[in-house]
């Protein structure tokens, strides 16, 4: 980014369509990274004005005030005030939801004190028009002292006008030194009076106000129906993760199987062929196959978020989660953690309070992330019969639901304990705005889904691929001595490590192959599946016994399978998550607290499950 290029920062209330406007302006020419030193997402993109001038656009986290209360809002404030050298904006665009102007007008008055040239984008203007809302654009512009442009981000309307206005205000207005300071309560009251005055002078209330949101809310926020709908939604989501993703998974599975067969056919037998077929293709393939499930899960989360349901879910859950010492807003990070604990831990930033945030971070990895799905699916396929119970519920899906429930319940219990031990009686506000319901924009959902898929694939490529090679090498070298009678892996490094650690895991029913899989599984949970695949495929390379699940159902007892599931509900088998926790809490102490408590729970849970199962004769 050259210093001479104009940088435009988008600032606005949450749910003002700011990100939609950013997507409309930059399309796919955007980079998502993190701000240096913190993990707030930094979204920057390139755009060209109608006359061809290139500009950089920044999408800042939504806020109601420059008086920052959360790490997200700190970034917004610091960028707006020019305190972050990587992003010094030349122009501020105040993005306003045209149908909901009151709070953003107060923000705009605050922005004016910053002294930078500014433009207001009245976004979602089509909805305002449909509601018969009359806005005196000229009067409004005069009252707030900045040009006002109308936009419809989802239909890419008004974008050129906005860019021309940005250039115009940049050419005609010189930046003044900032006079901004944190407003005190008297100033906030005064600013509200001013905003109300502007609103009543220049905006005529809608002739046909949005009644749809109210009607939907009367169902979705209904004390009984609302909760039932929320639970149903979660249940459907998990069933869908299984059934919708199946065709895609089969296709990937078959494609990679064919690829492996083809490579095995054209390459001579030997180490290199073994590395590519057993190590790379089957290793990465056993992880890649879960991409469809991850996409289905993210599709649900993105749609619910765009629809405006997430805040409602937080409302419905607040008291229930509050009983466990969690903030209702923790619902969103915890729900994201179902996809992956990393975005979950990171999105805990929406919680203003440090204590509530820390509690949420500590329990986020207990939510069943998508990396556990490969492990759960494998063990369920091996040990749980494919049956239907009560006429319509798949037994395998039901067990999966139970594992998810175990994660949720343990998260609630752990957060309750954290609250009791570390901080008592601390109060943090819940307050949040419930946005109007909106039809999700297919384009932006697709863009987000693609970004998620790319993050997953990059992870698979960068972390899992090298690990698969390491696992393959550990389980291949050294080769068996001449005249050896056992399987090749018995003599390898992996076998040695597994046997060395076996006594520790014997009380919970794990055999040494499982221990071998746990070691690389520390890097990422799903690697354990690939590692098991490698361990057993290498060990049984000659006999070619069907799928891995088939192998496991023969090799493990049911008690061992269940203990392995219990282990995976709790074990902190993901170095990346631990790294993010360290970064987000800015403390090694909290990271180690997490490691210790999760391993302790994992061992305990697996022990209890194994011993119970053995006692019931399933050993």
């Amino acid at each position, binding site marked *: 980014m050259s210093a001479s290029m104009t940088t435009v920062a988008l600032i606005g209330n949450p749910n003002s369509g700011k990100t939609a406007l950013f997507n409309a302006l930059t399309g796919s020419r955007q980079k998502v990274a993190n701000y240096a030193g913190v993990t707030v997402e930094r979204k920057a993109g390139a755009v060209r004005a109608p006359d061809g001038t290139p500009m950089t656009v920044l999408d800042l986290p939504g806020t109601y005030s420059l008086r920052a209360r959360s790490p997200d809002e700190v970034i917004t404030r610091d960028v707006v005030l020019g305190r972050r050298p990587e992003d010094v904006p030349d122009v501020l665009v105040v993005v306003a939801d045209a149908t909901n102007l009151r*709070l953003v007008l107060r923000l705009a008055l605050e922005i004016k004190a910053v002294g930078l040239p500014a433009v207001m984008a009245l976004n979602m203007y089509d909805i305002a028009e449909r509601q018969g809302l009359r806005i005196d654009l000229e009067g409004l512009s005069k009252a707030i002292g900045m040009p006002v442009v109308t936009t419809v981000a989802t239909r890419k309307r008004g974008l050129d006008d906005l860019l021309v206005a940005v250039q115009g205000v940049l050419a005609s207005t010189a930046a003044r030194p900032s006079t901004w300071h944190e407003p005190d309560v008297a100033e906030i009251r005064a600013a509200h009076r001013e905003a109300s005055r502007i609103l009543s002078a220049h905006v005529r209330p809608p002739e046909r106000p949005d009644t749809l949101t109210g009607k939907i*809310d009367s169902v979705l926020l209904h004390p009984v129906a609302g909760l039932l709908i929320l639970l149903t939604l979660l249940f459907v989501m998990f069933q869908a993760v299984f059934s919708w993703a199946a065709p895609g998974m089969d296709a990937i599975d078959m494609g990679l199987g064919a690829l492996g067969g083809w490579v095995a056919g054209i390459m001579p037998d030997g180490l290199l062929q073994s590395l590519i077929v057993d190590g790379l293709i089957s290793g990465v393939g056993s992880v890649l196959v879960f991409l469809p499930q991850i996409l289905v899960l993210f599709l649900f989360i993105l749609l619910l978020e765009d629809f405006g349901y997430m805040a409602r879910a937080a*409302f*419905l859950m607040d008291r229930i989660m509050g009983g466990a010492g969690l903030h209702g807003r923790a619902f969103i990070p915890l729900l994201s953690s179902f996809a992956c604990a990393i975005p979950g831990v990171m999105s805990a930033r929406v919680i203003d309070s440090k204590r509530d945030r820390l509690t949420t971070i500590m329990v986020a990895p207990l939510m069943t992330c998508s990396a556990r799905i490969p492990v759960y699916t494998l063990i369920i396929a091996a040990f749980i019969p494919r049956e239907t119970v009560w006429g319509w519920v798949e037994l395998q899906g039901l067990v999966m639901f139970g594992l998810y429930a175990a994660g949720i319940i343990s998260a609630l219990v752990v957060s309750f304990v954290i609250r009791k031990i570390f901080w008592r009686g601390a109060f943090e506000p819940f307050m949040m705005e419930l946005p109007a319901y909106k039809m999700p924009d297919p384009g932006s959902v697709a863009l987000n889904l693609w970004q998620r898929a790319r993050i997953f694939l990059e992870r698979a490529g960068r972390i899992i691929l090298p690990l698969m090679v390491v696992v393959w090498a550990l389980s291949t070298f050294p080769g068996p001595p001449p005249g050896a009678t056992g399987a090749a892996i018995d003599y390898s490094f992996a076998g040695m490590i597994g046997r060395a650690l076996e006594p520790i895991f014997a009380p919970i029913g794990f055999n040494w192959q499982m221990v071998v899989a746990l070691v690389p599984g520390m890097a990422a949970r799903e690697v354990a599946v690939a590692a098991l695949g490698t361990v057993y495929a290498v060990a049984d390379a000659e006999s070619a016994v069907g799928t891995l699940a088939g192998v496991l159902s023969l090799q493990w007892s049911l008690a061992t399978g269940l203990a392995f599931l219990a282990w995976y509900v709790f074990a902190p088998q993901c170095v990346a998550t631990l790294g993010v926790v360290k970064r987000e809490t800015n403390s090694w102490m909290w990271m180690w607290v997490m490691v210790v408590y999760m391993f302790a729970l994992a061992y305990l849970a697996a022990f209890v499950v194994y011993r119970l199962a053995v006692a019931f004769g399933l050993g």
Partner: protein
Amino acid sequence: MTEIIKLSRARRGQEGRIHAVEAIEDNPADALELERRLLEFGLVEGARVQMIHEGPVGRDPVVLNVEGMRIALRRHEVRGLSLQLDEADTAA
């Protein structure tokens, strides 16, 4: 004469204008922060407010319609706010 009640005691459907805003917290710093947040969400003296939803457990949190915006908050966060009920509500 219209009736003034604590906003935290309001029931679904009741509406009126905010009479006074005061944040009550044990810690004075918390109280000041809470007051600023309430004000930032438009809960200022004179604002028209209606309670439109009550949470499923213990009727908490609640959703208020504040001058056309839907704000979700917990009852104890608004225990320092008083609501001047409209005539019809007072009669009922």
